């Protein structure tokens, strides 16, 4: 557990090594040896709503790294209250591992009693804004801290959106005091799938709200002569997304960034290499900033 890590040491550590990776069971045995290149670990709390082997590994590993808890099951966008049993188990992990960030998504998964185990799209309307703000308030109150919410990848667009996604994200932060987990790959996927300008999207996000970024790989799925990008987290980050990340770092600053890789998980060395690429972009930004150069 992280009781022995005072906040100033944590801040220094995250400044020195700002890029993290997601903890996967395939790397339980190797991960302690990567402390000099990987700055922090992201945990999906839902994988640790249990005891036994996984919890024991996490107890051991969490004493060596700053931890971020990134939920996939709060279903903040559902038109119903957040599940109390889920909150209770999530909160127990917050108390145990003292994460520097806690996050979930601007999406929905639960409808009535069914939980569809996917991050499903929301219309960006005043009604959705009200509902999300209510649920984010409920979560922040229960956790006793602010959370970050992540912009989604979607494959379908509502006809009657009242707000752009970027505006909607800013409004959530204004209303609830939450922050943004800016997923740069998701912005790229959204822009391709719905004909948006990804740079304009990033520039519309208020950088003061952004406390973490995500990078991941995606695949292309063909339909006749057209295609959609699918956010699969099973590939290297593509060149276009690296370019977009550099723009996001210029806009938001050098903040903790995660390499996400959830399927077909490769050797740890592959993730370390991706993390180093992200770190190099951050270093370049810091050098330019120190020299007073604009983007």
């Amino acid at each position, binding site marked *: 557990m992280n009781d022995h890590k005072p906040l100033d040491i944590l801040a220094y550590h995250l400044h020195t090594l700002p890029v993290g990776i997601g903890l996967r069971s395939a790397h339980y045995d190797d991960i302690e040896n990567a402390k000099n290149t990987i700055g922090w670990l992201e945990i999906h709390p*839902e994988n640790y*709503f*249990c*005891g*036994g*082997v996984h*919890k*024991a590994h996490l107890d051991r590993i969490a004493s060596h790294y700053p931890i971020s808890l990134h*939920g*996939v*099951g*709060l*279903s903040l966008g*559902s*038109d*119903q209250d957040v*599940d109390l*049993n*889920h909150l209770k*188990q999530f909160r127990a992990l917050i108390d145990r591992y003292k994460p520097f960030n806690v996050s979930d998504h601007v999406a*929905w*998964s*639960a*409808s*009535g*009693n*069914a*939980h*569809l*185990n*996917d991050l*499903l799209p*929301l*219309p960006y*309307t005043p*009604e*959705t804004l009200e*509902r999300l703000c209510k649920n984010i308030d409920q979560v922040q109150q229960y956790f006793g801290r602010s959370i970050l919410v992540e912009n989604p990848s979607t*494959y*379908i*667009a*509502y*006809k*009657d959106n009242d707000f752009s996604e970027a505006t909607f994200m800013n409004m959530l932060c204004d209303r609830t005091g939450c922050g943004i987990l800016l997923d740069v790959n998701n912005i790229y996927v959204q822009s391709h799938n719905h004909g948006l300008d990804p740079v304009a999207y990033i520039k519309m996000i208020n950088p003061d709200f952004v406390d973490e970024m995500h990078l991941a790989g995606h695949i292309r*799925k063909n*339909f006749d002569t*057209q*295609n*959609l990008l*699918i956010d699969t987290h099973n590939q290297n980050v593509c060149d276009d997304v690296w370019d977009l990340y550099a723009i996001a770092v210029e806009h938001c600053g050098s903040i903790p960034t995660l390499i996400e890789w959830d399927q077909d998980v490769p050797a740890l060395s592959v993730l370390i290499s991706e993390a180093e690429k992200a770190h190099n972009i951050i270093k370049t930004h810091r050098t330019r900033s120190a020299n007073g150069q604009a983007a």
Partner: protein
Amino acid sequence: MAKLRDIQDRFENTILRKAGDLPDAANDLRDLFISDHIDIKDRMSVYHNNVIGSVSNALAATFPLLNNLVGEAFLKSTARAFVIENPPKAGCMHHYGDGFDNFIRGFEPAKNYPYLGDVAAFEYAMNAAYYAYDDDALTPASLEQIPAEDLHDIHLHLRKSAHLIASPYPLGDIRRFCLNETTDQPDLSGMSAYRALILRPAMEVEIIALNQGEFDFLSYIQNGKKLGAALDHTLSAHPDFDFMKFLKRHLTLETFCALPPN
């Protein structure tokens, strides 16, 4: 614009159906979504594949013995049918699959294989034990501190990971056969009497074969009977039940939870 609740109900209703029914169902969402150079049915198919695919794959992975017995294609098609009728109810998937045993027992394509439901129950119990929350075991020392005259009226509790299994099929033999630990064909006549306790005392899930007296006693304890009543009921059906031998064995196995503090 439709209300958010209505949108989410319709979306869920479109996703939770067979792939062949998806195009017609997606047509009913045309008032909500943009259908441009990529048709709405293709866009919805991404979500259908994500949901039904990810959940049925997670479910199938919980049942490796069934996979060995019926093959991957049959298990996955059974899992997809289960998901559509019984979608997950929680954001944590560790306990998804409860009820898959009964689903298989009533699943028409599996009707000639009556043992599959019991194999599924056995595997689900192992999965539940693997993901059970940790707890502490009852120790002989803490039991010795209870005055002898009070023992009759105490409640013992099985560990959080404990599951009792009863089947007319030799599930232990079936498991060993599936894992290639034996080439002996298990007896599938339904004339065996298999009783076992699935338990995770620490990190490893264990399968502990039980005799009928042990099984009955543990069942009484699990159903909330006091120690004395459980013993009386067990002895009435099994007069040769050796309680001290039983207690020594199950204290060693760490079957029972630590007593709550006074």
